[in-house]
């Protein structure tokens, strides 16, 4: 009885929330003020170093957001590998010797790598970019892992940590290097924006792929444990 009352109350509250929100959305749509932002963006696009406006916003106009976003991703990857503190990440249960999977893999892995490369390259002037490419790269890794290929590089050693942080570190380096060259922080020196953005995108692709893969591979859990505070030595 109590449970049904709770259900009913939650349902009513959520329905009320939805109606109020819908009213607010309709009102906002009706009362929208003209904004100069799209014109400003179009005017500045020429000096941003890329042709695709979304990539320009992500990696030039609002690149501080993107820098922090990669930081968030690194945190997730880091916590993932911190919880899987076994020395080897190889889980024998996941090794399969399925010949069909193996045959598929021989076709799919090169194709997917090619697709990742294309997405990375496409980001300059059409939908695509580092995150999409990194996601495909990680998916390739997942496929390889499911097919039982040995993947020594996702062992939680210094190499993995270097891989996790590489894209973030290069991005940060470029951010500060711009200031050393006399620009504002996170700005690219004139004429170099295109090249620097491409460099950032390439290392970000590698790092994003690695983080997502590490999160997938970090599944086996360790049996070591941390004593609670006050639980004695």
């Amino acid at each position: 009885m109590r449970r049904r009352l709770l259900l009913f109350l939650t349902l009513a509250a959520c329905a009320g929330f939805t109606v109020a929100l819908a009213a607010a959305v309709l009102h906002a749509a009706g009362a929208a003020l003209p904004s100069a932002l799209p014109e400003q963006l179009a005017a500045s696009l020429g000096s941003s170093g890329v042709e695709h406006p979304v990539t320009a916003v992500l990696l030039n106009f609002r690149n501080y957001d993107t820098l922090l976003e990669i930081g968030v991703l690194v945190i997730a990857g880091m916590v993932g590998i911190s919880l899987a503190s076994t020395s080897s990440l190889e889980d024998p249960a996941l090794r399969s010797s399925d010949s069909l999977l193996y045959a598929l893999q021989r076709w799919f892995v090169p194709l997917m790598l090619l697709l990742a490369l294309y997405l990375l390259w496409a980001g300059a002037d059409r939908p695509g970019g580092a995150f999409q490419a990194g996601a495909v790269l990680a998916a390739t890794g997942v496929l390889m892992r499911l097919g039982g290929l040995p993947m020594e590089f996702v062992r939680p050693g210094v190499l993995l940590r270097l891989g996790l942080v590489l894209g973030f570190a290069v991005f940060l380096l470029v951010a500060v290097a711009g200031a050393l060259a006399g620009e504002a922080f996170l700005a690219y020196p004139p004429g170099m924006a295109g090249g620097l953005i491409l460099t950032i995108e390439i290392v970000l692709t590698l790092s994003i792929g690695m983080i997502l893969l590490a999160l997938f591979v970090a599944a086996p859990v360790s049996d070591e444990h941390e004593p609670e505070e006050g639980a004695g030595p």
Partner: protein
Amino acid sequence: MNQWLMAGLLFTPLAWAALSLLLDFRQGRWLSWLGMLIQALVSLGLWVAVASNGGFYYALAGWEAPLGIALRVDGLAVTFVLLTAAVATACGLHAGVYLDPSKSWQRYFWPLFWFLWAGLNGVWLGADLFNLYVSLELISLSAVGLVALGGEAAALRAALRYLFAVLLGSLVYLLGVALLYGQFGTLSLTGIAAVVGADEPAAAMALLLMLAGLALKTALFPLHGWLPPAHGVAKSPVSALLSGLVVKASFYIAARLWLELGDRLGSHTLAQGIGALGAGAVIWGSWLAFRQPHLKQVVAYSSVAQIGYLFLLFPLTFAVAEPVSRLAQQGITLQVVSHALAKSAMFLAAGNLILSVRSKRVDALGGVSHYLPFSLFSFGLAGVSLMSLPPTGGFAAKWLLLQASLASGQWWWVVVLLLGGVLAAAYVFRIYRATFLEDRASDDFYHPPRSLEAIPMLLALLALGLGLVAEPVLSVLALPFEVAAEVAADVAVQP
């Protein structure tokens, strides 16, 4: 010069996070000592710069506000930056000794710590609503990671509760941002404040959503359920960081929103309602703190109560005279600063006491007053600030809030302020009573290193002394923003 100081605040923590990920715990400690020194100097430098020249805006990547992301560096922001440097340095130093370097996962403490610091500085300086969302997520995820570090079942349970609460809070905040962007076409808080009118139901709904999300992240009563387990189960230096700084970040954004938009989008009911929830937090949180069997749960519920005072900002600044509103703002700022110092001191001291008696329970503390008088004294000094007795920062804050309540004719908040002090005394004295009971069978105490005892004492003394230096601290808040335009013009817009 200013922009280098400010960039030092934003980018050195990020760089230190990246570097310390490559090192182990001991090497990371060395690196972090250097980093904390840099942060302390940079924060102090920026504070002095703003105190002498006034605040300024800085356009990141050289793109001005609607298109790019602008940072706002004003008196309030640098006060919080400096507070963060003090509290985070203390917690970092404490953690370097307190945590066990032989555990393989402790190496991840430093990167998480530095990401957390980067996010906090990003929030204090942020003036872009979406960027604030990303900074908040940086803070939340690293805080959850710190709680979960080590991966025990109790820690994971607390971390998951914490994670779900903060994620929901962030999304509700983002929903408000989406409504505002849909209506006004800009993400800059100052830009929105310039065009928003008085009768805007959609924008009012957006403000309501953002405040609700942030209140959940700040653990405002009755949304506080996630806080005590998370702050109670984390390691003491982490609890100190979470209680001292992390909950203040979301409150800071809520306060900024209210002060910029509240006069047009808020209402009397909303302001009084939020104040009533704050009052509820003071009473209910203190009562629960009094009843907790575990020492750190007492301190954690005390945070719920102390956070309640902060939300008195909303009724005390809505539709009141300018001087009254200023009094209230100053009082709340002092309350944030003194609570951050006192509560981090209290958590660190509680960690020492727990280390000493090897139990988390309050009733196991019997006799510890003989063995660890120094840590107990730090705990008590911090408690004095929470009880808001003179001359502490807590007293100065409550005094300003009392004046603001009386001057605006809202006498009912006075009752809350006085009652809160009495209840705080009750739960602090309960701990003291337990430590003086001599019914313990064994004399088996562990004595933590001196450095662990010194750090909470320093923080408690800062909280105590804050009341004496309240004037210079507050004078920075009211600095004019005139210089802003010139500095903004200095930063050349890219061709």
